[in-house]
């Protein structure tokens, strides 16, 4: 596979980033210390390059009806200016990807899939669009996405916004978006994120990305903003109990296994949608395993694919795990047999031959104080 680079690659190199491959993209793993980056987002602000994520426009008279058919949620019911978390499933009910859908109007939606899945999602949408009066246009290659996350994110963006447009930032609710001018660039500003903190994601054309990045970094300096790589992004989202496609979500898992049943609009959507029959059957039968949060009682962390044990017998598998920088103890997400998923259940993780005690806890592990 050819390596892909975002429009901000040179900025990352200048900042001394270590790079990692993610979904075919060369992305910053960390700039200095991933722990320092993690704490900066919890206490001040972090600046992320998410330009590897996909952007697919769905436009046309039947845009809403089409997305209701192609995805598991009822996107036609989303209000203008609001975003909704959704899933795209295959006919067997397996998860092709999780994504966020932004509704600009009756006939205009933006779909944002994950990096590695963007071409697959764009192709699936195009295929499913055959019988609808819609246009599906993948603009991933020319669109950059920058996230500013953390308690100081709003203050930093206000510094870069004309007074007259301040309400477009301050009045923005969680999972809502506006189009405005920030640091001299027309952006789509969404109050969304993957860190468990308040924060924003800014869609911008590639040619403006480096300038926006530099101006946010400069304006944020006095607030303690630091550039953050994928290592801290992963530890932040794990603390916030958010799933990562490829770890918690896959073609082999149904939304009900992953605790995403409420995302599937079986009741509110009358018409058919891709995966409906299979998902109804899965819901009826009930999941055999469920995604749970595990809190380590010792110091050792469980890692992806480590077995989860009950009295020495395997009852599940870790999907993500590491020491929680904010909480100070190891946390893990794991699929566990349904009979061992009650909060407070004592389980072990097989740490390379040693059984280490963990306990089933409610998700998210970390919830910010509002």
């Amino acid at each position, binding site marked *: 596979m050819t390596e892909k680079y975002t429009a901000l690659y040179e900025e990352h190199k200048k900042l001394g980033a270590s790079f990692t491959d993610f979904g075919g993209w060369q992305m910053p793993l960390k700039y200095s*210390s*991933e*722990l320092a980056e993690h704490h900066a987002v919890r206490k001040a602000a972090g600046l992320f390059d998410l330009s590897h994520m996909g952007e697919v426009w769905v436009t046309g008279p039947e845009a809403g009806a089409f997305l209701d058919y192609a995805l598991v949620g009822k996107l036609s019911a989303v209000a203008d200016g609001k975003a909704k978390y959704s899933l795209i499933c295959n006919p067997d009910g397996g998860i092709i990807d999780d994504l966020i859908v932004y509704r600009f109007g009756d006939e205009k939606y933006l779909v944002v899939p994950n990096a590695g899945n963007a071409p697959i999602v764009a192709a699936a949408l195009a295929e499913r669009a055959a019988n609808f009066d819609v246009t599906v246009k993948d603009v991933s290659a020319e669109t950059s996405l920058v996230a500013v996350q953390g308690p100081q994110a709003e203050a930093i963006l206000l510094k870069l916004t004309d007074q007259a447009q301040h309400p477009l930032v301050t009045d923005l609710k969680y999972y809502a978006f506006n189009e405005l001018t920030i640091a001299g660039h027309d952006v789509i500003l969404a109050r969304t994120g993957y860190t468990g903190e308040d924060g924003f994601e800014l869609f911008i054309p590639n040619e403006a990305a480096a300038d926006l990045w530099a101006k946010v970094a400069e304006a944020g300096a006095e607030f303690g903003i630091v550039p953050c790589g994928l290592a801290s992004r992963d530890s932040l989202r794990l603390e916030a109990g958010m799933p990562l496609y490829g770890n918690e979500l896959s073609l082999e898992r149904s939304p009900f296994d992953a605790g995403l049943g409420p995302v599937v609009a079986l009741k509110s959507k009358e018409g058919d949608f891709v995966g409906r029959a299979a998902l109804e059957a899965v819901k009826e039968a009930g999941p055999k395993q469920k995604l749970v949060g595990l809190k380590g009682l010792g110091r*050792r*962390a469980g*890692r992806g694919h480590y077995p989860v044990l009950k009295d020495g017998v395997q009852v599940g598998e870790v999907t993500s795990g*590491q*020491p929680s*920088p904010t909480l100070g103890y190891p946390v893990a997400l794991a699929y566990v047999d349904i009979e061992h998923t009650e909060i407070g259940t004592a389980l072990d993780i097989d740490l*390379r031959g040693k059984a280490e005690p963990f306990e089933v806890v409610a998700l998210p592990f970390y919830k910010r104080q509002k």
Partner: protein
Amino acid sequence: MAKVAAELKYSVEHEWISTDGDGPSVIGVSAVAAEALGDIVYVDLPEVGSTVTAGETCGEIESTKSVSDLYSPVTGEVTEINDDAAADPALINSDPYGAGWLFKVSVTEEGPLLSAQEYAEANGGEL
């Protein structure tokens, strides 16, 4: 670029060993390894009085992202471990050749060791 301390010898598994003096040898991990691991959050050291064998695992080092085996570059008896590094593994990142040392061994036999120059050339470190 990560520093390679000139006065030390190194194993291919990235442990360093200080061999001067008559007392037990001091062992740690190189700055090259510490940097590659990322922020170290846990270290499992051999027990004092136990015997370690050159080239064999004697513990684990866990960073935020991964777990790696710790290899002994020498054979002998462990005489002391660095409780400070066990309690605060960040010392291994901040001062890998000093306060972040790991354990001491009364050496009976050395494994194959590289000079600082050889190690730096093989691993892209800076002398």
